[in-house]
């Protein structure tokens, strides 16, 4: 360790890893990973989202999972929680849809009507 700069480099490197436990998350994407969701390809959509977050370099977005929400025909479903905004639920989110939602909604705050299922709680 020669100086504070070197320390900061290590810090950057482990940042994402720790942010799950420590950071402030402004945007949360919940992927329904019930049996129905998995069968419909939710895992692939989720992996797409994870990759997109990593690429964007944003540390305030996290992905978590939940179970079946009872609308199996809409799977894969994702919920998007943006701080201080109503939660938005999307249905039939395949990997292509995931990319579009990420680009428009997550990064640019525009709701993607095409896949919209419901809004609000």
């Amino acid at each position, binding site marked *: *360790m020669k100086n504070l700069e070197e320390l900061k480099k290590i810090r950057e490197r482990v940042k994402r890893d720790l942010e799950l436990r420590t950071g402030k998350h402004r945007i949360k994407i919940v992927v329904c990973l019930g049996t129905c969701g998995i069968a419909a390809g939710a895992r692939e959509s989720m992996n797409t989202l994870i990759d997109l977050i990593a690429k964007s370099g944003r540390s305030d977005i996290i992905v*978590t999972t939940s179970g079946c929400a009872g609308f199996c025909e809409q799977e894969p479903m994702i919920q998007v929680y943006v701080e201080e905004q109503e939660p938005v639920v999307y249905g039939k989110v395949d990997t292509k849809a995931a990319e579009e939602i990420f680009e428009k909604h997550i990064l640019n705050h525009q709701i993607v009507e095409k896949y919209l299922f419901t809004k609000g709680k």
Partner: protein
Amino acid sequence: MNDKSITQVLVSIDSNTVLSGARQIKTKLITELSRQGISEEVRVIETGSIGPTNQGVVLGVFPGGELYANLTEEEIAEFVQERFVKGRTYQKRLLAEKLPEEMMLQEYDSRKTQYYGRIVLDNCGRINPEDIEEYIGVGGYEALGSALQEKTPEEIINIIQASGLRGRGGAGFPTGLKWSFTFKEKKYPKYVVCNADEGEPGTFKDRLIMEGDPHKIIEAMVIAGYAVEAEQGFIYIRGEYKLSIERLQKAIQQAREMNLLGENIFGTDFNFDIQIKIGAGSYVCGEETALLNSIEGYRGEPRLKPPYPAQYGLLQQPTLINNVETLANIPAIILNGPDWFRNFGTENMPGTKVYTVLGHVNRPGLIEVPIGITLREVIYDYAGGISSGEFKMAQIGGTAGDILSAEQLDVPLDIQSLQALGHNLGSGALLIMNDSISVAELLTSCMKFFAHESCGKCSVCRIGTEYLYTACNRLRKGEGYADELENMRDIATTMKLTAFCPLGQSVAQPVFSALKYFKNELSKSIKQNKKSFSPTREKNSKVIYYS
């Protein structure tokens, strides 16, 4: 780092959970996750104590901070299936409490007057204590870097003094002042010693700090070394603390590899290294001068003070001795400044205090709270209330601590308020008892401990502890002599005034406070008409008492 995990499971591995099979649970978790094909998404991380004690193996799941306790190995398959495959909470073992999602707790304390955060335990149960990069990731070693590169030793001492930090080892001596005494001595080499003996019964805060965040202690010691111009540090640690020793050794090794210990730290001309010394389980060796003797290889008997360790310490050289918890406050104070630190606690004693709450409460365990909250708040707001029966008494600060009654429930727990009543804050153990325990019973067990631990160097302590033990034992059996209580007070007074070291002197604390608040109850144990068991008069007594 090519990490795809979106969920992290923290397995609390500390001395308690290891006994409940935490290591097996961790292995089983990893196997199950890979069997389900989700090892990439869910990462298993080892951490220190998460919080709840006496609840078997404790897991924290992030993000979200759900807590699970009492999980058995057989349940892991089902747990993984439910929680990570289906994404539902595993209700069966879910605790009502959650881990805060942000590192620094920003909760209102119960009086709704000020914010508090965790200073000492902020990383415990959150980072992997065996990975220096995680510690760096949460800001670790930055205080050291900025101290070495941007501040002089005098500036650091001034910061610590302005923060108002006082020792957390029991005596509450102002830390900055202690550092300045050691700094002033111009006799080299000097030493820094971390007191990790933690012999006070019921106290295990230092252990959980070391198990959960060992690098914080290392960082603080290097800062202390720089501030008092020492180049060698020692950690004197209780031998039973196997896991703490292991993790400290690992931490020292990692710090050396990164040159955070060793020569030319942070590219400066400052050198510092740390050695661990393992104690052999004597209570008095926690007393700083006995501790120094023990490190030097002598019998663990106290030395006469003054001179204090700041002048004649280890190997007769100037030495700074601080408790683990005291040191754990240092990096945060350096990083955030003294004014920030004074946001917590009281004017006279800023900061937080880590308490180990034990006995008849619903949620025994470790808490970190602002100094100055009352016993009532600790019991009812943090420890979930009395588990059965009614609150009767509390012994604060360990076996050498005072015994308080229900009337003292609202006294703020800080040095000044307690001293006004003749009490001490002590080490942080809070033993809460209901009406099933008699005062004589409690006193007997305290005195038995002291009689066992008295080192024998001075006769006042050696004889006094033995005498008090037999007296309390008589009271416990309801066979007290007519003037038993007066005799006990006399002996305790003599010990307080004339014992060689604070061990013998502190024996008076529980005796005085019990006599003060529970005299009625103790009087009921006096059954004999026979007047006194004055050691001078009793024929076969081994005790010789010069009056």
